[in-house]
Every structure is written in structure tokens, then in C-alpha cells.
């Protein structure tokens, strides 16, 4: 198993490396950053000065190297619009995004999984049909629209919850978190259900029943343990979706997180921030994928003891 882990880790590192190059290149393509920094009236030497400061006179690989070495120590430069280190900005906004994501994840796991399991166990009943209907609907709803509908219903018409912002309290968190978690819950539910159905038809589940095992144990100990594997690999996709979703959800609910930061930076053409966030997100995905691969290898006895 260690060989497998090492192989996957190297693979991940290489991907990460290539992604960083891509990120670096993309932003470079956008035009001359010097133009943005230096006011129009400045004399030519000012341009030269800035150019040299930013190392733009050197070969592109050198530029990359310089940039990369700074990144690795956590220095992403300064925001062009706010003159604050990018790292500070990101760290400031990060807890908000983390909060949303964690709650959405909890909802996904503690609602999506059990409903999927029981939906499979009580296949064909009204509960199953309702759950499946919800799941199908859930995967078709655009999350920005869902957020807006929630705001319409709960904030504008019923006035139960605040429409936006993150002042404190639970009531600010609940709508964005539910909106963010909606799609993953639907996906997890469907996947768990189909995975469970397959497993529930297997011979070893039959044997467990033959042995006289209690049905709830059959469901969770015997069936679920095997059914969980595909759901686990899907969880990497969920994390990815949460990240993408956070940009939208934070925008709709004016939630001060990293997602919204990135969007604002894009509007303001604040490239250092965009660069940093994209790189961070990409590294996050790659790491998440790697972690899931390792977890899968650990849980699957064929790979672990193979």
C-alpha cells in the first residue's frame, strides 16, 4: 500500500506543478501589469523602475521561479487595489468560507447518507419516492437561483431570516449553508442509494440475514460498509463543488468569504489575489483527491492487504 501512496503523491505533486505554471501564465496573458500600477503621467523611467522591481525584465522562467519561491513561503504579493498583502486578505476571509463549507458538509453527511441508506432499504415506499424526487430536483436547481428563492421566501415574504450578511448568529448562516449543501446532498443521496441497492442484493448480505443478524445491523454494518466506498470517491467531487458553490452562494448572500473575494478581485482586475486564490483552490482539490485516494486504499482491504 505504501507504494500506491507514494505513486499517487508524486502524481499529485506533478499535477500541482503544472497547475501552478498554468496559473502563472494565465495572469501574465492579461496584459501589462505595469500599466495598471503606474499612473499615466509618470515619466518613462518610472516604468523602467517598476518593471525592474517586478522583475519583468527578466526571462519568463526566472519570473516563475521568483514567484514560486515567494508563494512557497506564503507570500503572494500585495493586492493592487488595496495595498495589503494578499495573504492577509485571504486569511481574513477564510474563516467565513470555512464556516459555510463545514456546515454544508455536515448537512450532506448527516442528512444525505442516512436518507440514501434508508431509501434503499425501504425501496418503493412513499418515503423512497419522495427522497428520490427530492434528489432529482436537487440536482437540477441552480444554486444561485435557489439562494434567491430562499431569500424571497424567508426574508422578503416571511421575514423570518435576514437576507444577507454575516453579522453573527445562526440565522445568518442557515440559508447560505443549506443552499450550498443542497446539490451535494442530492448527489450523495442518489449515489448512496444506488450503491446500497447493489450491495443489498449481494450474496454476503444474504448470508448475514441467514446468520440471523438484526436488520439494522445488516444495513449498517454489512451493507453500508461496502456501499460507502463509491460514495467516498464522490466526496472529492463534493469538496470541489462546495468550493465552486461558495463563490456563488457568497455572492448571493453577501457572505464575506474567499469566494466573494475572488469575484470582486476579478471585477477589479486585482490579479495577485486571483492568482493566489486559484492556486490555493487548485492545490486544495489536488490534495483532497489525494487524501480520498489514500483513504480509499486504506478502507479497501484488497488494496490494503493485497
Amino acid at each position: 500500500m505504501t507504494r500506491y501512496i507514494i505513486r499517487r503523491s508524486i502524481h499529485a505533486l506533478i499535477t500541482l506543478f503544472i497547475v501552478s505554471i498554468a496559473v502563472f501564465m494565465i495572469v501574465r496573458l492579461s496584459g501589462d501589469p505595469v500599466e495598471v500600477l503606474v499612473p499615466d503621467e509618470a515619466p518613462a523611467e518610472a516604468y523602467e523602475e517598476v518593471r525592474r522591481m517586478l522583475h519583468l525584465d527578466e526571462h519568463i522562467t526566472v519570473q516563475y521561479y521568483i514567484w514560486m519561491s515567494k508563494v512557497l513561503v506564503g507570500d503572494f504579493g500585495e493586492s493592487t487595489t488595496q495595498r495589503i498583502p494578499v495573504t492577509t486578505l485571504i486569511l481574513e476571509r477564510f474563516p467565513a468560507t470555512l464556516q459555510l463549507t463545514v456546515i454544508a458538509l455536515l448537512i450532506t453527511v448527516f442528512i444525505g447518507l442516512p436518507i440514501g441508506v434508508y431509501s434503499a432499504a425501504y425501496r418503493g415506499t412513499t418515503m423512497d419516492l419522495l427522497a428520490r424526487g427530492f434528489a432529482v430536483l436537487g440536482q437540477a436547481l441552480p444554486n444561485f437561483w435557489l439562494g434567491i428563492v430562499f431569500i424571497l421566501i424567508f426574508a422578503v415574504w416571511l421575514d423570518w431570516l435576514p437576507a444577507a450578511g454575516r453579522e453573527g448568529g445562526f440565522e445568518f448562516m442557515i440559508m447560505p449553508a443549506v443552499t450550498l449543501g443542497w446539490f451535494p446532498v442530492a448527489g450523495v443521496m442518489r449515489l448512496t442509494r444506488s450503491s446500497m441497492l447493489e450491495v443489498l442484493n449481494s450474496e454476503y448480505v444474504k448470508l448475514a440475514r441467514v446468520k440471523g443478524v438484526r436488520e439494522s445491523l445488516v444495513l449498517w454494518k454489512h451493507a453500508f460498509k461496502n456501499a460507502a466506498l463509491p460514495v467516498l470517491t464522490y466526496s472529492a467531487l463534493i469538496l470541489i463543488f462546495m468550493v465552486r458553490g461558495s463563490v456563488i452562494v457568497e455572492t448571493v448572500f453577501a457572505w464575506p468569504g474567499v469566494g466573494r473575494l475572488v469575484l470582486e478581485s476579478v471585477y477589479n482586475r486585482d490579479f495577485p489575489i486571483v492568482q493566489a486564490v486559484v492556486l490555493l483552490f487548485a492545490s486544495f482539490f489536488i490534495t483532497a483527491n489525494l487524501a480520498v485516494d489514500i483513504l480509499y486504499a486504506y478502507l479497501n482491504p484488497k488494496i490494503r492487504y493485497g
Partner: protein
Amino acid sequence: MAIPNIIKRLHIYKLLPKRAWAASESDVPQKDAPLDKTVAAHLAQPWWKKHLNFVPTVPLFIVGLFLFLAVFADVVSPHDPRESNLSASLSPPFWVGESSFEIAGFSFTKEAGTLTYLLGTDLHGRDIFSRMIHGSRIAVLVSGMVLAIATTIGVSLGVSSGYFGGKPDAIIMRLVDIMLAFPPLLIAIVFSVVYEPSFRNVIIVISALYWAITARQVRAESLAVKTQDFVTLARVAGASHLRIMWKHILPNIIPTVLVITTLQVGTVILFEASLSFLGVGIPPPNPSWGVVVSEGRDQLSTAWWISLFPGMCIVVAVLTMNTLGDWVRDRLDPMMQHL
């Protein structure tokens, strides 16, 4: 019933009614068997349940409707989607009556909805209903073109990768991994900054991100097909690589491709809508559904109809395509549950 050769060869004959291709008699339910009471009770199912098994009539009808609207949008929609009429600004849907409210001692009346503007108008006085109809044209165009491009690239690369193996395979798959490692939304956002948001750019960006999914799946299928005997036979007979890929491998992966494509239409529509909503997709004043929803955000408390109805269109479109995709998958190969 004779099945056209092309359908047989592409392995999509299973999409036809079972009567046409079921080999053994026992696959088709027998009608003249003697029934006793329990059996008769069991067989007395509602007619619509039996019908559902073959054709997904409702989804197909809806898809047809969208296609029709897309093509004939100019003719069908009551108004020009870009024509603004400030006097009718923020008119509500036709069923909403007049209402009045007070602010700081002054009373205002909100106009009632009219039949001229069925679902209301936005801030500029543009008819929402017409905008929605033209929005379907954008949705159809975008998803159609994206999928055409992404599928073509994905299939070509996927088949080549699976068939040739070795170095080309490694390179292509590494490329796929990288493409899939990027957060799609963010990349699209970044792209829109570098290059001004436009219809063409949206297509490029989404295609670039979606071909990888197809490629990966197609590669797996090609690997499986490659090992089959008829491929070896063709090789022995001296067929060129291109011929083998085109004549032998490609037809066998068509079912998978069909399933992936239909299932992805919904995702593409959602993605484009999200991009447009954020302002980095189809630029306003083009009436992409996402754009209209975002336009309605500022007026949410007073003009809820602007955001609500186009969003419903998105839901219906995506739901329909997902259902259709599921049906295609179930008919062609129920084993493909993992897709």
C-alpha cells in the same frame, strides 16, 4: 420490424421499443395466459405505468418545446427582448392586481399586471416572457455547441489514448488530470477577465473544461473494447490503425458517449447560467437565463418575478435533460450506473 443497419451498428437499437429487437418470446409479456385471481389483481396496473416503460413522453415533449422556442424565438415571443419601454418598467405578471403602499407619508401605487407583458417587465421595461423565450435559444445554442466540440475532442483523444496506450496515453491522461484539477468556475472567471466575456469565449471556456470528462470515460471504454477478439482479427487482416478505430472501436463506445452527453447537457446549462449570473458568461443585454436572474437581484423585494421565472426555466430544462439522460442510460445499459 426491420431495424436500420446504422442503428444496429451503433448499438443504440435498445432505444427502440422492445418488440423490435427482443430475441426470446419470454421477454415480451404474454397476453393469453390463463389468469387466476391473484395474477389478475396484480396485472391490473394503471395504463400510464405500463406506458412509461418505453418512451419518456413528457421529457421528449419538453425538449421538443425548447428546441421549437429556440428556433422560432423571434416569431413566438410577443416582444423584442431588448426593446425597452420605460413607461412599463417593473410591471408585474398579469395575475397580480394593483397594490398600494406607503413610505414616509406618501402613498404609492404599484401598477397591476397586464396581458401585454405576461410575466412582467424588468427595470428597463423589457418583457420577461420574451426574454425567457430567447433565453432558451441561448441555452440550446450554448449546450449544443459546447457538447459538439467537447465530445469531438474528448472522443478523439479518448479513443486514441485508449487504443494506442503507452506514451500518448500517459500524456493525454496527464492533460486530462490537469484539466480536471482546475476549479472550473474559477478558471472561467479568470478567463473572462483576461478576455472580455462574450458568447464565443463562453463556448471556448466550457468546452475546454468538459472535454476531459468525456475523454476519461471514453478511454476506459476503448481499453475494454481494444482487448476484444474482433479488434485483433482486424489487426491480423492488416487494417490500419485509423480504420480500426473508426470502424471497430468507435461504434462500440457510442452508447457510452450518448449517455455521457445527454447527462452533461444539464450540467452545461447550469454552468453557463452560473457564469452568466456572475457576470462572466454571456454578457448582458443578451437574455441568457442566468443574466436575467442576476438582473432581478437588485429588485428582489419589489419585483420578484424577474429572478423567479427565468430560474424556473433553468430548472425545467436541466430536470428534463437529466431525466432523458437517465432514461437513455437505463435503456442502453443499466450497468452504467456509475456515470
